[in-house]
């Protein structure tokens, strides 16, 4: 079949059809996959991180296998989930005090100010996030802008792995995003509803059996 192409994954030769993702090709075979796999194409879980080298190219790029099409002669190595051995913890109280965000950011992520601007994080990100800029913004105190840079981050930890200064950029981004929500999000409708419930209003009448039309019987 002319549509069949060969691709090499972790040392195993696989046959794929044109249009298959790397992940689909990976799943063909008699070995059960027990890691580095997740949402199977949606591109939101960040589990299927891999190094991809296209035939005839020197560059070996970081990609998500479920979002990358298999190509003839492609070589793929999956990467384990990277978690740094030591991380400094922070608590919810740290993200709630907006006046101290800069201090907390510095305490929890002291490396963030050491960025050497190598752009490795930008290159590593499979989602095209401008990670390095986000860290620069955070270091300058432009926390909201920094948080927004990481809005679509899927936390695959590739930038954390790629960073030679151990900055953990995606976690900086998440810290700022969480801090912003926890500190500023106070929707009026939710406050009102919670208050009504606190006062014992709006208890549910279990006996009110609804009908198919949505009206009570």
């Amino acid at each position, binding site marked *: 079949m002319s549509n069949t192409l060969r691709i090499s994954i972790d*040392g195993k030769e696989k046959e794929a059809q044109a249009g298959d993702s790397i992940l689909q090709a990976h799943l063909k075979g008699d070995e059960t996959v027990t890691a580095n796999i997740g949402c199977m194409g949606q591109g939101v879980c960040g589990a299927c991180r891999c190094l991809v080298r296209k035939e005839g190219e020197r560059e070996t790029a*970081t990609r998500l296998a479920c979002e990358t099409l298999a190509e003839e002669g492609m070589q793929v*190595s999956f990467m384990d989930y990277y978690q740094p051995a030591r991380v400094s913890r922070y608590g919810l109280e740290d993200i709630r005090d907006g006046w101290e965000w800069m201090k907390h950011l510095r305490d929890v992520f002291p490396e963030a100010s050491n960025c050497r*601007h*190598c752009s490795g994080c930008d290159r590593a990100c499979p989602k095209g996030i401008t990670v390095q800029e986000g860290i620069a913004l955070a270091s300058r105190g432009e926390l909201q802008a920094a948080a927004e840079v990481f809005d679509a981050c899927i936390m695959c930890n*590739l930038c954390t792995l790629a960073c*030679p200064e151990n900055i953990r950029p995606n976690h900086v981004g998440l810290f700022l995003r969480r801090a912003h929500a926890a500190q500023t999000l106070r929707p009026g409708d939710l406050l009102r509803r919670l208050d009504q419930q606190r006062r014992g209003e709006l208890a549910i009448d279990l006996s009110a059996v609804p009908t198919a039309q949505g009206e009570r019987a």
Partner: protein
Amino acid sequence: MDKLNQVLLKPAIQVGADLFAWMQQGGTQGLATALDAPQTLIQRIADADLRGMGGAGFPTARKWEAAAQAAGSEKYVVCNGNEDEPGTFKDRTLLSRTPHQVIEGALIAALAIRACHVIFYLNPHQQGSLREMRRAVAQWQDSPWLEKVAKAVGQPVDLQVVPSSGRYIGGEETAVVASLEGGFPFPRKKPPFPAESGVRGCPTLINNTETLAKVSHIIRHGADWYRALGVGAASGTKLYSLSGDVMAPGLYELPMGTSLHDLIYRYGGGMLEGKAFKAVFTGGPSNTLLTRKDLDVALDFDSVRERQSRLGTGAMIVISEGSSIIRKVAEYIGFFAKGSCGQCPSCKCGTFQLARLLERVDSGRHSPADLAALRHLCQILPGSGRCGLIDGAVTVVQSSLHTFPQEYGIAATAD
């Protein structure tokens, strides 16, 4: 032991930063000879078959030629003293004990290519080197020699000591350039090579410390004298950094082409008591392992290459039977991972995954699929970086797979 420490490490010339003492030992005679006929220098270096001692073994004269031919009136000579790879400890010895032979060599190089800036790029973690070199350079600046060199070059010549970042990656040629321009030592894509376009776009000759240290002796005593120092076709002497499970680890200057066996057993006192020789990681340590069948190899660039390995910096890390090759390899991979500059994700990510797989193998919990994955990584990583760091990391893994398959639990492949 008569062949030991004949030139660079000759006890008599270890005079430290005292220029007068250096001159009493014949110092500056090489420079004086060079000043008589600067245009012949490159040919003399070529005749001596001097090679780059930083690991590549590239003919020094060709590099000088490229820098001499390159257009531009402002040129640099950089003495690379960043030395930071595991098992290598030669340059720091030269810089701290015999700074003048390094400086004299660098000035001769400046004469040869007509450079007006001479920079000593030194690892700040080696405080002794930095201190002695600063003192030594100050003495040259006060001496009439600099004026003579300037006259020959046709413009003022300045000498500077510049601390490097102290990072492993900072020793890579293009990283040296980046660092001297004031930035982080990020390696750059080649070409252009620094000899054509280096510091701030100027032609820049970057030589290893040991390479430059040899220059004054060659000019003073002649190419024939230098060639005759070597064994067989090999030329001159070499500093070997011997470490690991031997009785007398240390730095040995021996004729280029001395056999590995002689280095370990004749000069290095043999293996630690009760230990048997197993393998050598050559410096450093991004090369193919040498094993028992390689004990007869002549330690010169070409002979070691015939064994599919490299002489590298001349570092020989000796491993004895009973030590885990995989653990050692994993340790070096960790070193490379830490040394990665960050620019190329394949370097950080590749070393991480190599380390993960090696850890599984080392603890005996790996599957055949892990081994296949390890081999596959060794295929897709080389060439993917701007510099050779990832290539070196892969080489050492691949070599251990090839040389000690039984440690990976796989049957040996036919050689």
